[in-house]
């Protein structure tokens, strides 16, 4: 016999499944994930493999698409298609890890702030104000000049500047939920604050956090792209979709060699769009008024 599960999340799942755009978004995201995961198998060449013009000691720069190089080669004679696949790994890893960081920090601060209120809340919310006011770009440029640039700096930097949204969202949700009767009931049955926060409040506000995670992932991808495009993000020779777009800063490339920048730009756009669709789908699925 088929057991119909009836938790809040089972209902949400059924609603999500009926949303076509959300399903398309999910499918697309999964395809991109597979691309990233199996890059070494799918890619015809290594990400930093240089190609030379036949018989000469010259890089085969900006070769137009051919059977050999499906999407041509870039400014250093590397295969664009292979770099695109390996770039997916880097881009998605940066996005996911930074979202994990921002979600953990944001959720923790939001929970503590909302639950304990008063002084704790005032202090944390001022910290949020300060972080929001940080000029991210200058911060990153100065960090990358002081420190050896690495992918981890990009991850932590994006995570560190984007937890504020989650913190505010979670704080608001906690303020709403903690006034509900079942929280009073938990208090009345002698549950400790920690138990109330993690067993009663957090599971009940997971839905908006999940929506925020998807939207945050999309924004992290964009942020990585723009940072790398400006040269303060992921550094060469590591490929990322953002730094592949750097070549487009040259007018000649932008005008005459679209195969160099259209593919990374296109996949960035597609992936961000797909993730937004998933986020919208989740939001609608979690909305009890639907």
């Amino acid at each position: 016999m088929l057991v119909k599960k009836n938790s809040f999340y089972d209902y949400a799942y059924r609603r999500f499944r009926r949303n076509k755009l959300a399903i398309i978004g999910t499918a697309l995201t999964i395809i991109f994930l597979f691309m990233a995961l199996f890059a070494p198998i799918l890619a015809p060449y290594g990400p930093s493999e240089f190609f030379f013009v036949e018989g000469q000691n010259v890089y085969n720069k900006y070769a137009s698409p051919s059977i050999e190089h499906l999407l041509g080669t870039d400014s250093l004679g590397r295969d664009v298609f292979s770099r695109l696949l390996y770039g997916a790994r880097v881009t998605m890893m940066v996005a996911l890890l930074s979202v994990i960081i921002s979600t953990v920090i944001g959720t923790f601060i939001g929970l503590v702030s909302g639950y304990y209120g008063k002084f704790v809340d005032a202090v944390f919310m001022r910290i949020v104000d300060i972080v929001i006011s940080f000029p991210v770009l200058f911060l990153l440029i100065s960090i990358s000049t002081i420190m050896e640039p690495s992918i981890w700096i990009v991850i932590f930097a994006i995570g560190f500047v984007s937890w504020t949204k989650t913190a505010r969202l979670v704080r608001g949700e906690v303020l709403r939920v903690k006034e509900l009767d079942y929280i009073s009931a938990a208090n009345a049955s002698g549950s400790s604050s920690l138990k109330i926060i993690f067993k009663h409040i957090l599971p009940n506000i997971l839905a908006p956090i999940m929506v925020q995670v998807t939207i945050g992932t999309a924004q992290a991808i964009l942020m990585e792209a723009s940072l790398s495009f400006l040269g303060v993000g992921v550094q060469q020779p590591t490929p990322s979709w953002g730094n592949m777009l750097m070549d487009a800063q040259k007018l000649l490339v932008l005008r005459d060699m679209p195969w160099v920048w259209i593919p990374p730009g296109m996949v960035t756009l597609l992936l961000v769009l797909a993730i937004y669709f998933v986020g919208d789908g989740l939001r609608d699925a979690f909305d009890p008024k639907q």
Partner: protein
Amino acid sequence: MKTVLEVKDLSVRFKTEEGSFHAIEKVSFDVQEQKTLAIVGESGSGKSVTSLAIMQLIAENGSITGGEIFIDGEDILKMPRKQVQHSILGKKISMIFQEPMTALNPILKIGDQIMESILEHQKMDKSEARRIALQTLKQVGIPSPEQRFKQYPHELSGGMRQRVMIAMGLVTKPKIMIADEPTTALDVTIEAQILNLLEELKSTYRTSILFVTHDLNIVADIADDVIVMYCGQIVEKGPVVDIFESPKHPYTKGLLATMPSLEMDEKILPTIPGSVPNITRRPSGCYFHPRCASAMPKCAEQAPGETLVGNQRVRCFLYEDGEENNG
């Protein structure tokens, strides 16, 4: 007879934009083993604040400013918070809320919520807790408890949810259970069932009940003793029979007169003139004097103390000498 709950001179103060006000003042009463004490009063009389103060659930802008609360002989206001959570709340005293629709955690299964109440206070393995939870569900009259165990609150009706709440409250076998208008949100037939259930469980579980309500019919039905509250003070308390037979305080008399009965001829329900004054604008002297038909000049000047009249304690100048004086 053993006293399970004793409240002495309990005062609760709330800070508001307009200043700081006492929601309840020097409230004292006690509940004996296996007895039901009802607190009655209009909205804003302080009856809910009293029960919330006992459960340590006063909102952030309020605080207990004085008094003692003894549960099973221990003053919980002098205990460290951790100890109150661990050995009093949910164990010796539990509470049933007014709204069964919102008092259960929507994303936890019924069974898990009841088991949690058990495991919070007793060390036992899960299968044992499960057995007790199922047994309690059966006792509160939930059909096919095995199946309900795995369901979520939204799959149950209001009456069923209130039964689950009662099961959660009883599962630790508390000395006393506070029921804050537990039937207000239910329809009348379900209300009767729940009240019968409470009566029945009171003797099975040997627990006392502190029943907060504004419904005098329920009081007459289930209470042993009654407290009548007005503006944060107890104006009259005593055994239910005495209070219904011969109410002393003019407010109690007024309340009882408003009870509709089948023999009533009048087309219009009797009412007490005026309304409960706002907490920020309480009158001088006796808080009830502006609405009182028997008010005397001194009622506006000084606050009356409590006097014992027969079995009842009354806060009214009419009974200053221990009996009604018509001066």
